């Protein structure tokens, strides 16, 4: 076995792993519940639109949520049965908000819809991506980013390294571990497909070295399948080695900065479960309808279950038997997981673990003390941030400064809060600061839109004033001498030009009315006639002849409009 040179990331922590509690029993199938509640929005991106109605009969694997555009992913029925409702239900999210779900009553037959392998080798890359999107394949490590968007070789035309993430660094969670032990071939085959789709020169599967069984099973599968350019690499166990960027760093030495595409650096990263789902989707033609979920924490028998999406978490918890003093349900691990608003929320694609908590297992943090600037948090931060500075500025609501200290590079891994001797819930402060900044940005965008609208209205009012003046002038032309008309036009010109200038640049919806353009042209014509220098920006590219022509036409049209206006005064106000 060749020893690979590994790299290290700074920081990280070594919490109690608690993995042995759930990885000694094989994966079991969770029974179908009485009712499946399948949220339509289960991935990053657009909310899929429902394709079924109450009363419809669906079959297992049938498309029930169509992807909304390309940045979205399909949702399928997890079993056969009857659609009882399409309605908002409580989501597996800390916020306690509800969102549209398809509620299915299983018929017990668990009948598949017709499906066939996808001939992906003979398809164009775009078609393969569509197939993955329509199969609902998303990142199963917890981020649920639509996988089809990541399956591309990047601007270099090929990847140097495709990283398959089997590190699974969060305590308690063993779903990837067990999948690698029991279903290594599917993962390796999926990795091979991803390798071909991304034109990767090599595939490195990173697995934390506290999972020797998984490493061995995966190595054996690579040998059995004679998979080329796929290497299984045991990486040192240290949280958060399973963070995509951290694992890429460990395996390749490359650091992908925040906000950059990893493909630009010649690397891409998929979770092992995602690789398996890709294989199922393309080679078996099966959409993603279930996943392996670890149930652990304050339960009698922690174990991994294959769970259909839409199964209420409490049903899965019942299989593991929660202890009586349980007081909360967390989705994910203890370091980065989210507290659920209720145990009734459904298992979704993001649910890698259902962690049952109790006061004894996760004691409430002792009272928060002031920061003593001991720097422990900075030593623990895998992103090399200065957490206490970010904390200080987040707490003081000096968000600009917090951003200067790279707030948005923070991956919310929790290492800093884990080591802080003052027991400050640092990550909560970062979440707070981030959401405040987002809210302010949204507000600013809204304000900008409002301001633009306001400016547009002002411009319109001014334009109408000018038009009125012009109208008067026109009337004067008819009734009075030519000289008087010229004088009126001269008076109107500056106002027009100003109005046009304000209205044009930020105006995206000018298709509704082409008045501004007309006014510019009209103003131009008049200004030229008076040898005044008026020079609106957006007619620069047009030749003088053309300009004159446009001006003439527009002037005529303006006049026509004025006449029309005179017929029905002030109606559009």
């Amino acid at each position, binding site marked *: 076995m060749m020893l690979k040179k590994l790299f290290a*990331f*700074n920081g990280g*922590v070594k*919490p*109690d792993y608690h993995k042995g509690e759930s990885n000694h029993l094989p994966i079991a199938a969770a029974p179908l519940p009485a009712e499946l509640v399948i949220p339509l929005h289960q991935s990053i991106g657009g909310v899929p639109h429902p394709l079924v109605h109450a009363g419809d009969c669906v079959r297992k694997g049938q498309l029930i949520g169509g992807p909304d555009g390309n940045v979205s992913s399909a949702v399928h029925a997890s079993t056969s049965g009857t659609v009882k409702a399409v309605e908002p239900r409580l989501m597996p999210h*800390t916020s306690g908000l509800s969102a549209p779900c398809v509620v299915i009553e299983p018929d017990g037959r668990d009948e598949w819809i017709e499906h066939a392998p996808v001939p992906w080798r003979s398809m164009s890359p775009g078609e393969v991506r569509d197939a993955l999107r329509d199969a609902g394949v998303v990142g199963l490590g917890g981020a649920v980013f639509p996988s089809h968007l990541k399956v591309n070789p990047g601007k270099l035309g090929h990847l140097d390294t495709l990283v398959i993430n089997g590190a699974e660094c969060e305590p308690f969670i063993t779903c990837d571990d067990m999948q690698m032990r029991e279903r290594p071939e599917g993962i390796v085959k999926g990795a091979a497909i991803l390798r071909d789709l991304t034109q990767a020169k090599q595939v490195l599967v990173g697995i934390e070295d506290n999972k020797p069984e998984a490493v061995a099973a995966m190595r054996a599968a690579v040998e059995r399948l004679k998979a080329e350019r796929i290497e299984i690499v045991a990486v040192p166990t240290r949280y958060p080695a399973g963070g995509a*960027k951290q694992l890429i*760093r460990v395996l390749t030495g490359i*650091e*992908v*900065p*925040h906000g*950059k595409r990893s493909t630009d650096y010649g690397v891409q990263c998929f979770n092992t479960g995602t690789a398996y789902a890709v294989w199922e989707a393309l080679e078996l033609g099966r959409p993603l309808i279930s996943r392996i979920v670890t149930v652990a924490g304050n339960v009698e028998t922690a174990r991994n279950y294959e769970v259909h999406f839409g199964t209420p978490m409490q049903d899965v918890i019942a299989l593991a038997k929660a202890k009586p003093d349980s007081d909360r349900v*967390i989705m*994910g691990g*203890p*370091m*980065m*997981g*989210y*507290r659920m608003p209720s145990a009734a929320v459904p298992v979704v694609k993001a649910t890698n673990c259902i962690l049952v*908590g109790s006061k004894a*297992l*996760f004691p*409430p*943090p*002792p*009272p928060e*003390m*002031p920061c*003593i*600037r*001991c*720097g*422990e948090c*900075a*030593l623990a931060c*895998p*992103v*090399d*941030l*200065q957490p*206490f500075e970010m904390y200080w500025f987040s707490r003081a609501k000096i968000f600009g400064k917090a951003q200067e200290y*790279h707030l948005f*590079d923070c991956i*919310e891994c*929790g290492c800093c*809060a*884990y*080591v*802080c*001797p*003052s*027991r400050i*819930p640092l*990550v*909560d*402060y970062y*979440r*707070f600061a981030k959401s405040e900044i987002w809210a302010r940005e949204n507000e600013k965008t809204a304000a900008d839109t409002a301001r633009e609208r306001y400016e547009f209205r002002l411009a319109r009012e001014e334009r109408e004033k000018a038009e009125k003046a012009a109208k008067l002038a026109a009337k004067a032309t008819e009734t009075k001498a030519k000289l008087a008309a010229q004088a009126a036009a001269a008076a109107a010109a500056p106002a027009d030009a100003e109005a046009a200038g304000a209205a044009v640049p930020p105006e995206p919806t000018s298709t509704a009315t082409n008045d501004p353009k007309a006014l510019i042209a009209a103003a131009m014509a008049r200004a030229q006639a008076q040898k005044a220098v008026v020079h609106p920006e957006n007619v620069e590219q047009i030749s003088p002849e053309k300009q004159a022509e446009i001006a003439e036409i527009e002037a005529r049209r303006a006049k026509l409009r004025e006449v029309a206006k005179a017929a029905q005064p002030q109606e559009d106000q």
Partner: protein
Amino acid sequence: MINNSPYFRQPASVRGVMLKVLAALLPGLAAYVWFFGAAILVQLALCSAAALAGEWAMLAIRKKPVWLFLSDGSAVVTAWLVALTFPPIAPWWLGIMATLFAIVVVKHLYGGLGQNPFNPAMAAYCLMIVAYPQIMSQWPAVGFTDFSTQLTAIFGPDRHLDAITMATPLDALRTQLHTADARATVAGILGSHATFGNIGGKGWEWVALGYLIGGVWLVRQRIITWHIPTAFLATLAAIATIASLANPAVFAGPVFQAFTGGAMLCAFFIATDPVSGATTPRGKLIFAAGIALLTWIIRTFGAYPDGIAFATLLMNLCVPLIDMHTQPPVFGHKKDEEEDKKGP
């Protein structure tokens, strides 16, 4: 704020940190008692009591949870540093006043735990050496460990100090260099005088060794990082080496500098105060090197017994600036910074 992940944390606490700092002072303290008697223990007790009383009063006035903060141990650490930098036979009220000043003014009036820009113990030392230069220079002679005499010195109305005091090594060296005949050299003075031991001051060198041992343990316990002690001692030694090579008659060598006065205490326990010190790795190096440089200058050219207190306060002032300019590169941005440095 709702409590979210992480749901469990390392069992670390401010109290734990402070207790370890106190524990790390014990070897040095043991040597102190051995060579200079139990007076220092009396001072430790007085200062600790004053610190806790001051802390309690300020917490009550500021309406903070009294027990939570009183039990964090930070006030006791400040008290011990005051006691260990003051003459052990100083009158009882001196240490108490100094500690109260450190806790009430330097710590709490600046916002309490974690907020003070200056090292409280060093600020107290500076105040007292300016206010009572005489008393602050009365250090016990090595070996005069008679406890009742010491108690009289501390509490008695008649302080008969002549028999038990002695100039400190740094003082002795300086006064002799300045006042003795022109032929006096560092080597001559160190060799002839009873104040000096093998490498530093008699007795004091062992205390310093104790601090060194406790300090290394603190580094291994990850309470402090290696940066400040190393940069401090290395800088001090480097300057001393250069100076003593340039003119061995006038400048003491590196080992003497490092094992004399408050140097060891400063390296591991004073400059490493996280609250008032620099926090970034490079910043710590600069901060500690700055203290060492200033310490050497004050020791060599100034009129005070030792320079660490003033040096520390001066560098405390520079901390925001140092931290701001020594931010370590963030994950993935290392390249950008190199490119930035190269310029367009």
